[in-house]
């Protein structure tokens, strides 16, 4: 019997399910391995009879939580798909903002019509999660690896090391030494006086050193920097990373802002540990 697979989405952009749809021909091959019974973005059928459930999006309302608990009941294996479900993701930016202000900014006078939690949470804040597929969006190969592993009865192997590993293998010029900047030269040299203004721009900064690899250092390869979308590695040396960011001229506030893009929930958890 093929395992029965279902997808469910909560508060997220559905980009991870799109990655699955975007497998194109490979999706047809995948359908040889599993039977997809719920995939709202693509198919109409709905079923409560499934073995593996993929959860996309964060949990932010009582209604979400109830639905998620139901899914957990039905599924043998529950997989958090994408950063919103796995670590809270971009949604958790607001967790560090004042909840009242948050609602008012978006809904103005109608703010009280909206019933959502003060914080957007990852799936494992509500139910037990068996496997995590990180990324915003997920990496297709990693998704395939996890599905295959589950079909084969294997434990999927997700990297425990930081993005720098893949970045080095790709022989990227480290973000910290871009623009002719030398990473061992003081931050002053990396500051660029913006023409016609007082403002001093500082070089780009990278969260790769504390972010879990698995994306093949995608963003650095493409000329930007790692934003941390796959979340923190298991034992991030954030102190050392902060020192690095400081050396390159980032203020404490800017560092926190960076860490809050995706790490918001994880940081809170680490503090509570």
């Amino acid at each position, binding site marked *: 019997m093929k395992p029965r697979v279902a997808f469910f989405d909560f508060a997220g952009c559905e980009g991870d399910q799109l990655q699955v749809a975007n497998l194109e021909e490979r999706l047809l091959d995948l359908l040889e391995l599993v039977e997809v019974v719920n995939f709202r973005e693509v198919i109409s059928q709905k079923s409560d009879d499934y073995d593996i459930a993929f959860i996309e999006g964060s949990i932010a309302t009582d209604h979400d939580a109830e639905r998620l608990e139901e899914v957990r009941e039905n599924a043998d294996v529950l997989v958090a798909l994408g950063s919103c479900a796995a670590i809270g993701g*971009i949604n958790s930016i*607001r967790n560090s903002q004042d909840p009242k202000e948050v609602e008012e900014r978006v809904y103005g006078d109608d703010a009280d019509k909206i019933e959502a939690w003060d914080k957007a949470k990852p799936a494992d804040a509500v139910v037990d999660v068996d496997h995590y597929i990180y990324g915003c969006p997920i990496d297709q190969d990693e998704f395939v690896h996890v599905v295959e592993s589950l079909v084969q009865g294997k434990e999927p192997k997700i990297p425990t090391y930081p993005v720098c590993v893949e970045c080095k293998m790709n022989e990227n010029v480290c973000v910290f030494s871009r623009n002719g900047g030398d990473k061992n030269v003081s931050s002053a040299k990396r500051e660029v006086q913006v023409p016609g203004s007082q403002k001093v721009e500082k070089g780009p900064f990278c969260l790769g050193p504390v972010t879990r690899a698995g994306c093949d250092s995608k963003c650095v390869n493409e*000329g930007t920097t790692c934003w941390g979308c796959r979340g923190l590695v298991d034992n991030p040396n954030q102190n050392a990373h902060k020192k690095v960011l400081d050396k390159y001229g980032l203020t404490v506030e800017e560092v926190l802002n960076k860490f809050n893009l995706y790490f918001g929930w994880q940081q809170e958890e680490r503090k509570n540990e």
Partner: protein
Amino acid sequence: MSNEKINVDVEYLTRVEGHGNIKVNANDGQIEKCEWQVIETPRYFESMVVDQSWKELHHITSRICGICSIGHTLASLKATEAAMGIEMSEQDKLLRKLILHAENMQSHVLHVGYLALPDLMGEGSVIPLASSHPEELKTVIRLHRLANEMSEMIGGRTTHPQRLIPGGFSKIPTEKELTDLKNRLKNSFNDLMAVADLCEAKADKFPDFNRETEFISLTNEEDYAFYDGQVRSTDTGISPVTDYKDITNEFVVNQSTAKFARNNRQSYMVGALARLNNNYDQLSPMAKGVAERFNLKPINHNPFMNNIAQLVEVVHNVRDSIKLIDELLEGGLEPQEDYYEPEVEVKAGRGIGAVEVPRGILFHDYTYNEEGTCTAGNCVIPTNQNHANIQQDMEKLAPNLINQGKEEDEIELNLEMLVRAYDPCISCSTHHLDVEFVE
């Protein structure tokens, strides 16, 4: 007409992006309730952008929607660029137009091929097509893949592209890549026509339903507007993008966590059909040819034809992409040394960016302080703008169907098809939709 009770209650409408319910109750042929509800969990992007740096805003707002993340990124960048007066090179503009075509193609092919065609073919989803119509499905997949690979080549990733940054690109494709792409686009004509044939063969399945509607989209003199232009309404004419609030007039309704919008009437429509109605003349001849096969001409008031308008647009996307690539390659690609970090003069200000994304016109509006930190943001998403129109359509269509004596199942299917024709992308209605026939 019977005195039956009719109760349509569709929770979590499938094959759309995001969460919408359709609720319709009728008793004795009388509609008691007819609601399009959006029940997405709010995500508060307009708040999340506050206190963030101008360098990060497009990264954050890209996450509003996975399907049109390229469009969101571009609207966001345009808003930031407008606020800071950042100039773009002509080459970068062409590349941005190209990637917008790619996204539009991707999304439309997904919608027409994976979501609408199964309805037409009488299948519950695209999956059975693998065995019932393998060749047709492969054609659709090929086009979808082409669009995705095109996005990847230009933006570095299909979803949440990386290379698009304020002022331009962090990396650009090589000339060889562009040449290869052009050849592949040219080779896709057969596939495009095959999909057009498929749709034409099923054209009778499109319900004949018309309702006078206001259509709004971008427009400009140069081209069939996606990347740039002013706002055009079939009712009120042309206005500048900066007036977007006067056009969209967003409001909150009880049935939905997403805002609704209206301009001149109770509602208006945006998206492929709106664009086609407004800018038909600027379509490429090949695209017009396809439109003619379906007798699709401006101004068409049948929302179900939005699917066909999408098909027409895909053809236009391919043709225009080839043209853009030719333009790019003509003088050879200009290498840009400062790709990683274009020079930007950070300053305080407000900027509004509008682009056409697959589902219609999209506005991002940011205010920055002199540090380049965002102090306020507003995003008006196409699906939000369509919600009210869906509601209005439904209020007309549901009684029609009931009067025609249709069964509950059929009513449900037709209402679902109506909503799907809009290709609503509810998760990205930063603010939201559902059908319920209540007893």
